[in-house]
Structures are given as structure tokens and as C-alpha cells.
């Protein structure tokens, strides 16, 4: 066991995979000498050399496309986006090339696209986004959203080994804020398995990413009031561990769907659809969705604070569900 931050866990996972498999290499902006905007790749250029740690021109289509071509030929590229927000600039390559190649002509695209997402650091409208939904909605892509250092390492390894294109969205607020004891060597967290972050019987809070901590914070408070919240950390949005979700719903009969991404068309809707189809009988109260309101992520501290869902929101929702 070794103590690692979330960021270090990601680095360690990539590092070990690069040691293990010579076909794994990195592409991105300023990931070499500079070690990346958030220093996830610090030290890698020195260790692995320019052949495998590649600083690219400022051209997301060019390097994402290059990664796709290399992956089709059997290499295992990992692409860093300096901010996950910029994924919008290479959107077509991802949803039309990478996602459809296997289905269309059997060409697998084993690549990982990773980068810092999420708000809470005053990044404003272009550096705080949660870009998961368009990719969740694109058949052929997998979407991973780790919330702990343990998962960050185990999931990046699973993502690198996966035969299909995986989007791996790191939450920048967690990079240095969480630190855990994690196993020193090789382990994998399989894609598509949710985690019960806290066991409870009264209400299920189904969430992912940084919001797991908001849910846990709320659960602490609720426990003192005698409301035992179960917190489900989805870990992957695609493939989704639907069974884990439904099992928790059947157990608690009261459900809060929580995410940092904005509400309309957000993942809570997808969960609501599945639950209302498949666990309708188990529900004792309306579903409640908690998400950021439908506006761009604002910069100024009081606005961003009002924007992001917080423990208070969850606590109030749980109380009202309990009282229902």
C-alpha cells in the first residue's frame, strides 16, 4: 500500500501500463517537458522518452485523429486533453470515426481520451465543463468517471487495456484534494461495476465523480437525523452497472439522482428512465434529480457556488423524500 493523491494514482496507473505494454503511448499538448497543465504526466518524458511521450501542435483533430489511426493499427494511444472542455473541438473524430469504426468495418479503436473536467476551481465557462453526456449518447464509446484514488488507478488501467475507445474524465477538483492508501502494484477496476460508497436503507443517492463526496457529506448529516442514505458511486456511465442501481432502489425505495453536469438532458434523466421502467413497483416516492441548473458554468465565486449542487441540496431532498 502507498499513499497517493487522485492525480498520482492516475499517473501511476498510466506509468505501470506503459511499462507493461510498449504499444501504449501518450499524445497531447504540453505533456512532455512541461508534464501537462496539471502535471499528470510529470516525469514521463524523462523516463519514457520522446518516442512515447509526444507533445503535439495545438490541433485536437490532428492528434485525436492520429490516435485513432494508430489504435486501428493496434497501438494503444492515450490522449490528454488539456481541459476536457476542449473535446468539443474534435467532436467529429470521436463520435463519427472512433465510435463507429468497429461497428462499420470491424476496426477496433483501443484508445483512451482523458482530461480534467468539472468545476469548483473558478475556471469559468470554458474550463469547468462536465462533457460526458454527448459521449454517453454515442453508441460505441465507453465513459469512465472515477471518484477515488483507488478507482482512478484501477480504472485507467482497465481503460487502457480495453479494446474500445474509452473517455476517462478526471475531476480536477479531486486531483490533489483526495489522498488514499492504495495497492502499490498492479490491479484493475473492471469497467461497468458500480461501488456502494456508503451503505444505507432509507434513500439511495446515485451519483458519480466529485459529487460522490457531496453525497457522503450529506449522508453524514442525515445519519444524525436517523436517515440512512446509501451512496452509489457509478464509476462508469458506459457500460452502466444497472443492476447495482436497481438493487439499491429496490432496497431503499427512495431515490436521489445527483450530478454536477447540468440538468436538462443530463445523466439523471437516463437513470430516471431506467428506474421508472424497471423498478417502478419499488418506488415509494417521486424520483428527485439534483444537478447544476441549465446555464454555463459561471466564474465569479458566489455564482459558481450557487451553481454547483451541494450537500444542503441533497439533505433537503432526502428529508422531503423521507417525509413523503
Amino acid at each position, binding site marked *: 500500500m502507498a499513499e497517493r493523491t487522485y492525480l498520482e494514482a492516475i499517473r501511476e496507473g498510466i506509468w505501470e501500463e506503459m511499462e507493461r505494454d510498449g*504499444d501504449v503511448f501518450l499524445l497531447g499538448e504540453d505533456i512532455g517537458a512541461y508534464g501537462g497543465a496539471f502535471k499528470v504526466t510529470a516525469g514521463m518524458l524523462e523516463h519514457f522518452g520522446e518516442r512515447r511521450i509526444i507533445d503535439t501542435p495545438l490541433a485536437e*483533430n490532428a492528434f485525436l485523429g492520429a490516435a485513432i*489511426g*494508430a489504435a*486501428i493499427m493496434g497501438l494503444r494511444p492515450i490522449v490528454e486533453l488539456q481541459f476536457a472542455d476542449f473535446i468539443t473541438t474534435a467532436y467529429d473524430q470521436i463520435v463519427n470515426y472512433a465510435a463507429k469504426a*468497429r461497428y*462499420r468495418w470491424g476496426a477496433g479503436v483501443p484508445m483512451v481520451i482523458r482530461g480534467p473536467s468539472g468545476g469548483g476551481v473558478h475556471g469559468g465557462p470554458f474550463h469547468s465543463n462536465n462533457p460526458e453526456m454527448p459521449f454517453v449518447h454515442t453508441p460505441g464509446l465507453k465513459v469512465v468517471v472515477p471518484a477515488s484514488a483507488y478507482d482512478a488507478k484501477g480504472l485507467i488501467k482497465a481503460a487502457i487495456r480495453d479494446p474500445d475507445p474509452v473517455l476517462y474524465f478526471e475531476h480536477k477538483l479531486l486531483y490533489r484534494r483526495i489522498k488514499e492508501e492504495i495497492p502499490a502494484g498492479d490491479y484493475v477496476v473492471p469497467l461497468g461495476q458500480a461501488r456502494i460508497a456508503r451503505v444505507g436503507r432509507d434513500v439511495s443517492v446515485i451519483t458519480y465523480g466529485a459529487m460522490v463526496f457531496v453525497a457522503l457529506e450529506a449522508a453524514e448529516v442525515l445519519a444524525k437525523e436517523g436517515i440512512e442514505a446509501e451512496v452509489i458511486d457509478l464509476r462508469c456511465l458506459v457500460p452502466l452497472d444497472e443492476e447495482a442501481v436497481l438493487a439499491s432502489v429496490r432496497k431503499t425505495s427512495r431515490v436521489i439522482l445527483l450530478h454536477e453536469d447540468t440538468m436538462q438532458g443530463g445523466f439523471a434523466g437516463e437513470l430516471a428512465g431506467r428506474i421508472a421502467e424497471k423498478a417502478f413497483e419499488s418506488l415509494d416516492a417521486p424520483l428527485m434529480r439534483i444537478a447544476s441548473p441549465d446555464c454555463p458554468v459561471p466564474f465569479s465565486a458566489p455564482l459558481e457556488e450557487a451553481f454547483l449542487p451541494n450537500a444542503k441540496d441533497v439533505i433537503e431532498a432526502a428529508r422531503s423524500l423521507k417525509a413523503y
Partner: protein
Amino acid sequence: MLYSMKMMREMEHRIEKLYRQGKIVGGVFFGRGQEAISTGSAILTEAEDAVCPCHRDLAAFLIRGMEPWVIFAHYLGRRDGPTRGRDGNTHMGSLKHRIISYISSMAAIVPVANGVAFSFQYRKQPNVVLCYFGDGATSRGEWHEAMNYGAVFKLPIVYLCNNNKYAYSTPTQRQMAVAHITDRASGYGMPCRRVDGNDVLAVYEATQEAILQARSGGGPTLIECETFRMSGHSAHDGAEYVPKELFEEWAGKCPIARFEKVLRERGLLTAEEIARMYERIAEEIEQAVQRAEESPFPDAGELLDGVFADSQAKNPQAAASPAKGN
């Protein structure tokens, strides 16, 4: 090369006929008059090289070994096509033949082709990629990003632009304020060549030189092949916007007739031999169509196969994996 060009021409005629009969659905595109480009270049590839053909490069598929009946099966939406009916017209790819499928977004293949070239560089394989696109595609940002990227990393790739003077209905002078696609190469620091795209030997020579350079680590070349689209944009486009005289002018430059003439003049083939070759082609095509029409349609039960690896069925027409673990 005459065989490939003629085969392409005649297959496309046949495809058009099947389309007009309602047997091929959707849309179909032809490289009529442009056969010299994919032929004169793809013919130079070695087994482990790769090609990224676009929608007017049927000869590249043929030269890389995709059989005519498989191509017809593809157009007809049958299970034996390289996409098993998932995609149509020129959207074909096959790992086995090292044919990397383009997608509809024009020029999106160019960054991907770079990645294929990169894999050769990374693995220290002496191979090259031929990447094809049209004049209109060079207006797109991805094209620019990819050209720059290829030059910066000196990738083993040859970029082949068919300048057929139109992007759909839009003539090149409305696509760009320069006269030639090659005017753009100077912005990337790569060599360029402009050739008569209706002269298969000119295409051959320019590509040969570019491949040599790419194989020896000298990086990419941009080759502009001047040609003309002797059809509408797709089979449902009558191309009324193209001045009649242009069609007439370029009809006189038919790459097949020209190469026939060269072969006859140099005494390499007699008129008779050519006629026999063409007969054989006609026969082969009829057999191929027949075999393709015997291929079954895909079954509705296959609909979800291969969205992800764990549900992928094997496809003998395309599936040979180029490397471990893929």
C-alpha cells in the same frame, strides 16, 4: 493499370445501373474520368502499406485486393460486404487489405491516415500510407491540422488530392482564392507536385518519388492531380451547373483512352488484346454481380453485433487484425 482503370469504370457503370434499378439504395458516387489517380498511385503500394481512399477512388480498393463481388455485395447491402451491410457506397474498409475506411465528414480521414503512418514510424516499419481526398476537402480545418501535423512529425504518408474542379456544385474558385491546391503546401513546409491526373503515368511517377521519400524518413508530400468529375456529384445529380463545354473538353482527356493509346503506341498491347481484356472485365463483372446478389442480406438479429468488441462477430471480408490485442 489499364485493367484497374477499366474495371473501375465498368464497375461504376454497373453500380449506376443497379442504382437506377432500385437494387442499390441510398446514394452512389463515381470517379468517372478520375480512374488514373487511384490506379497510378495505389499500384505502387506494397503488401504492408496502407491506403485511405475517398469516394472516387474505387481502383484503390481493387488494387489492394478487394474482390469485385465483395464490393458489389457491399453496395447491395449484403452480409458478405466488408461492412456486413452496416454501411454503403464507398464507405468500405478492410484491415486485411489495409484499406482504412474514410467517413463522410470530408477530410476527417486525413488525421486518421496520419495515425496509421505514425504506427509505421513508431514500430520502425518501412511502410507508407496513401491518403486521398478532393479539392473541396482541403477547405476543411481537419485537413489543415493534419497536413501540418504530418509535416511536423515527418510521417511516412503521401497526400493525394484529386482536384476535379468541383465540390458538389461549388467550383474551386469559390472554394479558395488561390489557383492550386499546391499553393497551400508551402504553408506546411512539405514538398508538393502538381500533375495531370488524367495521365496515369504522371500520377505513377509523382507518387513513386513521394513514396520513396516517405519510406526513407523524408516525410510527406502533397500531390495535386488535376482532373475533372465526369458525372454529377452523385448519381441523382444531373450537374446542370457544369458548363457543357467543360464536359466536352475533358471527355477528350479520358485517362483510359489515353493510356490505351500509350500502350498501343509503345507496342505493349494490341487493340485486340485490349478488346479481349475489356471483354474479360465485362464477364468478371457479371459474375461478380451475380455472386453478390446471391449473398444474403444481414439478419435483423445481427443489428447490435460489434458496437463493442465483446459482441463482435467475425467477418471474413475485413476482420484480419493487424496486430495483437486489437
